[in-house]
């Protein structure tokens, strides 16, 4: 089977994968026992008239069987209709559009930074294998990898905001400040710094481990010995011959790592009150705002699926060894 038919098959496979993933998200939402209408009106505001409750159920389509509800929901999702928030009756799509760029900014910068750190330190550790530098880098990356991100974020707040008073810890911009264009960007970057560091450490540590071990594998291969035997400079051997192949696992795991970073962003946005999608999900989860949780989490899942699709295609294009 050729490259083209592989890519076409992978594209076609996207649809069943999307359906199964959305069905998983939908059924997770319905794991909990109890009536969603019951949840909508917890406490005081609950209408006592059973007829009104019945009407609400009907209006929201909650009286239909689950699989019908699922298909209605997923068709509406694909049309861009994500329903209305239970809390303030605003369209979920509007809530998402207001916040999505802040999450994109945080996640993309974090992924780039983590990659840069991971490749740089991973290669260094591999070249200096079994030296003190390698031991230091390996230990540090293990620490970073095991670090509970929410705690690390709070420790950064404690050091850089509470003690040193260097960075703000709340939101994405200074409220009420009148700034010019560059002032706004700098203000935003200052707000970004601590959440970005928190989000990056785990991923960077993971990349260091990945790059180190893949680099060590590659450096043991015959063609590297050949390159050295030819008398090529060590720099050329490492950066031109070895690194290119050592980065393949990094490309392969891009989709997976994006999912990891997006998951991390959900937690970290909440710590720093960064008003992106993650904070929206946690706030909605605490308030049981069903349509918002569903719409936002499905959007994140969809972006992870697309990232995986792109990863698979890119790998097929750049690695001629893969046979299909």
């Amino acid at each position, binding site marked *: 089977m050729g490259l083209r038919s592989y890519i076409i098959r992978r594209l076609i496979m996207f649809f069943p994968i999307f359906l199964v993933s959305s069905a998983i998200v939908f059924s997770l939402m319905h794991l909990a026992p109890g009536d969603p209408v019951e949840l909508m009106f917890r406490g005081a505001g609950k209408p006592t008239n059973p007829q009104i409750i019945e009407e609400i159920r009907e209006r929201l389509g909650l009286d239909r069987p689950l699989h019908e509800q699922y298909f209605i929901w997923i068709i509406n999702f694909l049309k861009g209709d994500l329903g209305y928030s239970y809390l303030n009756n605003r369209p979920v799509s509007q809530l998402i559009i207001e916040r999505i760029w802040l999450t994109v900014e945080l996640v993309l910068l974090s992924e780039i930074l983590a990659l840069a750190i991971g490749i740089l330190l991973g290669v260094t550790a591999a070249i200096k294998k079994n030296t003190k530098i390698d031991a230091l880098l390996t230990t540090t990356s293990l620490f970073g990898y095991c670090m509970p991100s929410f*705690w690390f974020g709070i420790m950064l707040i404690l050091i850089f905001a509470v003690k040193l008073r260097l960075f703000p810890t709340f939101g994405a911009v200074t409220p009420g400040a009148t700034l010019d264009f560059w002032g706004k960007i700098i203000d935003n970057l200052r707000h970004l710094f601590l959440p970005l560091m928190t989000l990056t450490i785990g991923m960077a540590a993971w990349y260091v481990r990945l790059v180190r071990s893949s680099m060590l594998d590659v450096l043991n291969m015959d063609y590297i010995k050949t390159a050295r035997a030819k008398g090529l400079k060590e720099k050329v051997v490492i950066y031109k011959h070895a690194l290119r192949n050592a980065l393949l696992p990094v490309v392969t795991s891009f989709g997976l790592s994006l999912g990891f970073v997006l998951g991390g962003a*959900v937690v970290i946005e909440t710590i720093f009150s960064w008003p992106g999608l993650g904070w929206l999900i946690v706030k909605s989860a*605490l308030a049981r705002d069903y349509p918002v949780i569903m719409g936002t989490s499905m959007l994140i899942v969809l972006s992870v699926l697309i990232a995986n699709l792109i990863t698979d295609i890119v790998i097929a294009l750049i690695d001629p060894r893969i046979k299909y």
Partner: protein
Amino acid sequence: MKPVKEHEYKERRIGRIYAMWRRFKRNKASIVGAIITSIVVLIAIFAPLISPYNPKTLNYEMSYHPPSKEFLLGTDSLGRDILSCIFWGARTSLFVAIIAVTIEILIGILIGGISGYYGGIVDEILMRFTDIILTLPTILLLIVAVSMFKVRSLIVIATIMGILGWPWMARIVRSEVLSIREQPYVEAARAIGLNDLLIILRHILPNAMSPIIVLATLDAAYYILYEATLSFLGLGDPTAISWGILVSRGQGVLQRAWWIATFPGLALFITTLGLNLLGDGLRDALDVRSRI
């Protein structure tokens, strides 16, 4: 070849365990991991005996007491002793990890076993499904799943974690089953007419134990981290004493009482570090291929 006598067989077995132990202790990091993990387990078991105070006793006169001789790690806003809270929190973490890992192993063995043993279309479908769950961000799915529960008990949270956490286990069990399935002794078992379930349980799984143990150790760290994260976000069991809840209580009062958020989080960090070191050490000692 002479038939192996019972006592000789035992000796060989002991020899094998001894060899594993030698490989394990060669690496200092794994010893550190084993010690940390044992200490956490002992603290969890003996929490009521070793805690200096009752972690739920409120003592308003002693609120925001900094670390001192009396309260080694200080007290929180309501005068609760942080050290005692950390000791009892170890129980919560361990409880959740044990339940989630058990569920993960059961589902993983079931799906991975069926997939590897039967192969073909069943394998194809199950592994596709496994891969899909693998790509989705676990913490997001956890938040989605627990959000609609009115009562979030530790058991509910741990069960959901196990239900979402089995894909790697299934893949590892599958690949072990695949490599063992064609061995002569399994063929022999099939030839004498043992049924499939018995073959999987009695003849294949015991030989797949090593990677299962390694993965379970590493995943236990994840579950402990996830439970703490959910609790931190306010989506955990509000009645449990969890390290995550303790950290979130400290977040608002960092200026006034830095110790409330710092020490419980440190306990969490050390625990996950210990389990990871132990898992890495076990992987080398049990000679599991490094694909986990």
